[in-house]
């Protein structure tokens, strides 16, 4: 029996995960409600004016999305533990990276849907209006989404094998993600306010977008190179 190709396996696993999600809507419901709660709590906590809210919105959006992403990431692999699906996968000839890519793509899609639903909410609750070009915000959204999701999916697989897996994931994901978080918050804020923030000197959104792009490429390669090691860690 020849082993299935990476693309075919990825597509099959992704289709399975999306179908499961479509029928249960577990991940998207819990993420959406969680993000909504964070947004409401932030509004109470800071009570910003329109001008202030434009200045802090970048930070608020990404903090809310980051926490919501962790909610989805924690559910990624749990399903595969039941009935020992993960062990069955390990002994099968399927390429390990197909599993990883499928999970990462699925999470990417969930977070992208979340972003699309959350953006109007943010605009309404915080009276936002972007001064900079909107296409840049879309680009930042996609790059930042992948930056969180690729490492997040990987670390979720790692924390699957620890004693307190739900807590472990943010504990290792957040410190590693600090440069990406900084880039996404700075870029978003600069596009929204139309100016470079005082704190970042003369940097432009372009610098941060490029940083996010390079970050995405580097960590995608690292994840793909190391996933088999983590999957087979005993």
């Amino acid at each position: 029996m020849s082993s299935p190709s990476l693309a075919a396996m990825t597509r099959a696993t992704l289709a399975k995960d999306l179908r499961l999600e479509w029928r249960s809507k577990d991940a998207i419901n819990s993420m959406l409600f969680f993000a909504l709660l964070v947004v409401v709590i932030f509004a109470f906590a800071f009570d910003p004016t329109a001008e202030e809210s434009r200045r802090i919105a970048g930070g608020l959006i990404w903090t809310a999305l980051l926490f919501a992403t962790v909610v989805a990431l924690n559910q990624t692999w749990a399903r595969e533990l039941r009935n020992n699906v993960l062990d069955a996968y390990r002994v099968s000839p399927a390429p390990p990276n197909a599993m990883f890519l499928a999970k990462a793509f699925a999470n990417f899609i969930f977070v992208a849907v979340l972003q699309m639903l959350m953006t109007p909410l943010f605009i309404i609750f915080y009276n936002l209006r972007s001064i900079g070009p909107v296409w840049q915000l879309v680009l930042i959204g996609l790059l930042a989404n992948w930056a969180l999701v690729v490492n997040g999916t990987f670390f979720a697989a790692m924390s699957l094998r620890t004693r307190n897996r739900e807590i472990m994931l943010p504990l290792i994901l957040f410190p590693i993600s600090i440069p990406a978080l900084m880039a996404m918050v700075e870029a978003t804020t600069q596009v929204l306010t139309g100016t470079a923030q005082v704190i970042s000197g003369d940097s432009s959104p372009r610098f941060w977008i490029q940083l996010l792009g390079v970050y995405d490429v580097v960590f995608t390669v690292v994840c793909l190179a190391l996933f088999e090691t983590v999957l087979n860690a005993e």
Partner: protein
Amino acid sequence: MKNAFVIFALATLALLSYGLYMALIVAPTEATMGDVQRIFYYHVPSAWAAFLCFAINAVASIWYLAKRGVKADAIALASAEVGVVFCTIVLITGPIWARPVWGIWWTWDARLTSTLVLWLIYVAYLMLRRFSSSGRAPVLAATLAIFGFFDVPFVYLSIRIFRTQHPQPVMGGGENSGLDPTMAHAFLWNLLAFTCYCLLVIWMRYRLQVAEQAVEDAHAERALGERA
């Protein structure tokens, strides 16, 4: 091996005492900052020791993933723990120095922030080790160390955009940089002493870890023998 360890420990002790004497008594009092500047002789060598530990950890982690030797893992664990301790010392002595000199305990400038982020990454590393079962911890930790290794350039690049309050390197800078020769002497002796001290503690922790592994193996073997 045991003799070498004792000799190295004694030499380190002598160096540390001499360094202390140089820093507190021989070195002149700094003109504007006063005696608080003497923290410099501990702050900077500690930072150097912490970075040395993290570098050792990165190399040992890569070595472990390539060869899967228990010794590489013991070195990685020992250097990460010692590195976190030295990094903590840097983060504590820094504010003590900053408060009288800058008038603030903390500022989110490039070097402070990146040291803090490095500390966070390695605390996460130790947490991951602590909460993994003993068989899996080495692989998972080594993997995380490699993520940390690739993360460091991004941390520095992104934080460099922030304005820097921390002084530029005093030595090897421009025309007006440089230390008083006596200060430089005291500093270099302390740098040497702290490097030796750091390596000594790593060595001790490494031996402890190897002994722990041996005990664990012996227990496992005995359990297997009883069953047979």
